[in-house]
C-alpha cells in the first residue's frame, strides 16, 4: 500500500519554500526557466479568451470613444512637444549666441556612472561629440560622456551630480561680483553632491570644491572653465547656471540646484558650436509612428485578484515584449508590461496599485510643462486613478486663484526607454503647494476594455525578424 511518506511531504514543503523565496526575491534566470516550463498556459489563455465576447460590445464602445478623442489627444500632444522644445532651449539671449542646439529626450539612467542616457529627437547622434555640454533651459546639466556605444541612436551624459564630475564655475552675487577688496567674481569647482545631501528634490545640494575665498556671498553660480585647455567645448558651456550658492556654515558651501535631477529631468539640449552647414537640426521623428511597436491582443477580461488591475496579452518575450514596456492604444497609455512569459504577458494598467510612470503636466495658464516626477498609482476609486504626488516643483499657492486646484493634462515623460514621452494619461486637478497630495486622474475612457493594443519594443520589428 502506498502512503504519503515523510519524504514526499518534506519534498513538497521544500518546493514550497523555494517557490516562496523566488516569489519574494526574484531571480530573472530561474523565473525565466519556470516561465518556459509553464508556457503551455498560453494555450489555456486562448481557450479562455472566448469569455471576452461577453464584453465585446463594451470593447467596441471603448474603441469608438477612443477614436473620437484621438484628434484632440494628438493636438494637445503636439502642443506639449512644442512647449517642451521651446523651454528646453536657453532663454537668456547670450546663451543662444554662437551656439547650435540638438534637442534630446532622457530615456534612462546610465548603468556605469551617475548619468543619463539621451536620445536625440532627430533619431541620430550625428554631430554630437564627447565633452559637449548638455543643458535644460539656462541650466547646465552635465556633459556628453559617450556617443553611440551599444545603440548608435543613444548618448550617455555624465551629470553634474556624479561623484567624479567637476566643472569650473564663478559666483555672481546679488550684491555685485566684486568683493570688499575689489576682487572679481570668486571662482570654484562644482561637481557631485554634498555629504549632507538628503537625496530629495530641493534638499539635494551640489558640492562646491576649492572656493577661491573663504567668505562668499550668496548668489548664482555659473559655468566658467576659465579658458584652460583641459576641457573641450568650454565656450559652449560658458555662462550656464549651476545653482544658487548656500552657506552650510564653518566655511562650507554648496549649491541648491535649479532643477530636480532625480525626477524632473526629461528634456535636454546638447550645445554645439555654430552649425557651419546652416541646415540646423533635423525634424524630430515621432516614435508613435516608428517600427518599434507590436500589435497585440488582449486574451483575458481582467485581473482576477481583488484590488489589482490588468489584462493578459497574447504575445511574450519571444516576440520581443519586455517588462516595463508601454502598452498603448492610439496615443493613450493603457498600461505597462508587468510580467513577460515566452508566449504571453501580463499588463498592469494605470489603476493597479504600484503602477509607476514618469509624468509631465500641461497646466492651464502656465506655458512651461510641469514635471511631476515618477508617480505611483494608489489604485482606482470611483473610476478615477489615484496617484500620490509630493510636489518637487510645485504650483504657487499664493497666486490669483487663491489656492484652488488647477486643471491639467497629464502625459508620460521621457526617462524610461520603453515608455515614450507624450502618451496621454488623462486629466487631473493639480493641487497647489508642496504636498504631499493625491491626484485624481480622469481617463475619460475605460481602456481596460480594449482588445487591440500595441506594445513598445526594444528594437524595431524588422531587426527582430532579421530583416535588413
Amino acid at each position, binding site marked *: 500500500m502506498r502512503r504519503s511518506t515523510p519524504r514526499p511531504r518534506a519534498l*513538497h514543503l521544500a518546493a514550497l519554500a523555494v517557490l516562496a523565496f523566488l516569489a519574494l526575491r526574484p531571480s530573472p534566470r530561474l523565473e525565466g526557466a519556470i516561465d518556459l516550463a509553464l508556457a503551455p498556459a498560453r494555450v489555456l*489563455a486562448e481557450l*479562455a479568451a472566448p469569455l471576452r465576447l461577453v464584453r465585446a460590445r463594451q470593447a467596441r464602445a471603448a474603441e469608438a470613444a477612443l477614436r473620437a478623442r484621438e484628434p484632440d489627444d494628438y493636438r494637445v500632444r503636439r502642443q506639449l512637444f512644442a512647449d517642451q522644445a521651446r523651454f528646453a532651449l536657453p532663454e537668456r539671449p547670450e546663451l543662444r549666441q554662437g551656439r547650435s542646439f540638438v534637442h534630446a529626450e532622457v530615456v534612462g539612467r546610465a548603468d556605469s556612472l551617475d548619468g543619463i542616457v539621451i536620445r536625440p529627437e532627430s533619431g541620430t547622434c550625428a554631430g554630437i561629440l564627447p565633452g559637449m555640454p548638455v543643458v535644460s533651459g539656462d541650466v547646465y546639466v552635465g556633459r556628453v560622456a559617450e556617443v553611440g556605444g551599444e545603440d548608435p541612436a543613444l548618448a550617455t551624459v555624465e551629470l553634474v551630480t556624479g561623484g567624479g564630475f567637476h566643472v569650473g564655475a564663478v559666483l555672481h552675487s546679488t550684491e555685485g561680483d566684486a568683493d570688499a577688496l575689489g576682487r572679481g567674481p570668486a571662482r570654484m569647482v562644482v561637481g557631485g553632491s554634498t555629504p549632507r545631501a538628503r537625496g530629495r528634490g530641493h534638499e539635494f545640494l551640489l558640492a562646491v570644491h576649492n572656493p577661491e575665498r573663504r567668505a562668499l556671498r550668496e548668489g548664482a553660480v555659473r559655468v566658467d572653465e576659465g579658458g584652460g585647455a583641459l576641457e573641450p567645448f568650454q565656450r559652449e558651456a560658458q555662462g550656464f547656471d549651476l545653482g544658487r550658492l548656500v552657506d552650510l556654515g564653518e566655511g562650507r558651501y554648496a549649491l541648491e540646484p535649479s532643477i530636480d535631477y532625480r525626477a524632473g529631468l526629461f528634456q535636454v539640449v546638447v550645445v554645439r558650436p555654430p552649425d557651419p552647414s546652416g541646415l540646423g537640426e533635423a525634424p524630430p521623428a515621432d516614435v508613435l509612428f516608428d517600427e518599434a511597436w507590436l500589435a497585440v491582443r488582449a486574451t483575458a477580461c481582467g485581473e*482576477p485578484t481583488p484590488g*489589482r488591475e490588468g489584462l493578459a496579452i497574447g504575445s511574450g518575450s519571444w516576440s520581443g515584449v519586455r517588462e516595463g514596456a508601454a502598452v498603448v492604444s492610439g496615443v493613450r497609455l493603457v498600461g505597462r508590461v508587468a510580467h513577460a512569459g515566452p508566449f504571453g504577458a501580463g499588463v498592469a494598467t494605470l489603476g493597479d496599485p504600484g503602477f*509607476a510612470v514618469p509624468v509631465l503636466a500641461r497646466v492651464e495658464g502656465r506655458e512651461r510643462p510641469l514635471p511631476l516626477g*515618477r508617480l505611483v498609482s494608489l489604485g482606482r476609486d470611483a473610476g478615477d486613478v489615484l496617484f*500620490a504626488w509630493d510636489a518637487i516643483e510645485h504650483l504657487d499657492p499664493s497666486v490669483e486663484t487663491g489656492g484652488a486646484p488647477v486643471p491639467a493634462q497629464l502625459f508620460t515623460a521621457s526617462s524610461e526607454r520603453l515608455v515614450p514621452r507624450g502618451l496621454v494619461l488623462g486629466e487631473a486637478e493639480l493641487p497647489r503647494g508642496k504636498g*504631499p497630495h493625491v491626484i485624481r486622474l480622469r481617463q475619460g475612457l475605460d481602456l481596460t476594455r480594449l482588445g487591440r493594443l500595441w506594445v513598445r519594443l526594444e528594437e524595431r520589428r524588422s531587426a527582430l525578424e532579421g530583416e535588413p
Partner: protein
Amino acid sequence: MTRSAVLAWLFLALWAAWASALQGLAAGPEGLGRWVPDLALVLALSLAARLPAEDMVKVALAVALGRIAVSIQPPVALLAGYLGILLLARGLRSVLELGGPLQRTLLGALAALLFAGWLGLVHAERARDVAAQAVAPGAAAGSLRPLAAALGAWPAALSTGLCALLLGPALARLPGLTPLRRRRPWSRAASLR
C-alpha cells in the same frame, strides 16, 4: 498515469482558467468588484477534500496553470500560493472532514484571505524599489501593504466561503474531472491520510 487521468488533469487546468477568467470578468467596475469570489480556489479546495493526499501537488499545479493563463501575477507567486493552500488543506484533512458544509465554508474564506495576503506580500516586495523611486515614496509604499491587501480581501473571503458552501460539491463534479475522483475511491484515500 492513464490517458484518461492525464486528460482529467488538463480539464482541471482548463476549468481553472475559465474560473479565473470569470473572476476577472466579474471584478470589473460594473461587476462585483472586491466581492468577487475566488472560484479557482474553491475548485482546488473542493478537489482537495476528495482526492488522495499525493495528488495535492498536481491539483495545485493544474489550478495554478489555469490562473497563470489569465493573470498578471508572477507565475512563481501563484504556484507557491496554490501549493501552500493545498498543503495546508492536506494537513487539515488529517483532523477535519473538509467536505462538510461548515468546514468548507470556513476553509474557503480562510484560504481566500491567506491567498490575497500572500499575493499582496509578493506585490509589495516586488514593487518596493518602484515605490522608493517615486516622488511620494511614503504614500506609494503605504498602498502596497500586504496586511492591508489581506484585510481588504474580506469581501472576497466572505463570497469565497459562500461559494464553497453552495458550489463546492458541484465544482468537484465538473465535466472531465470524473477520472480524478474515480481513480482512487474516497474511502480508500481516507485510509491513507
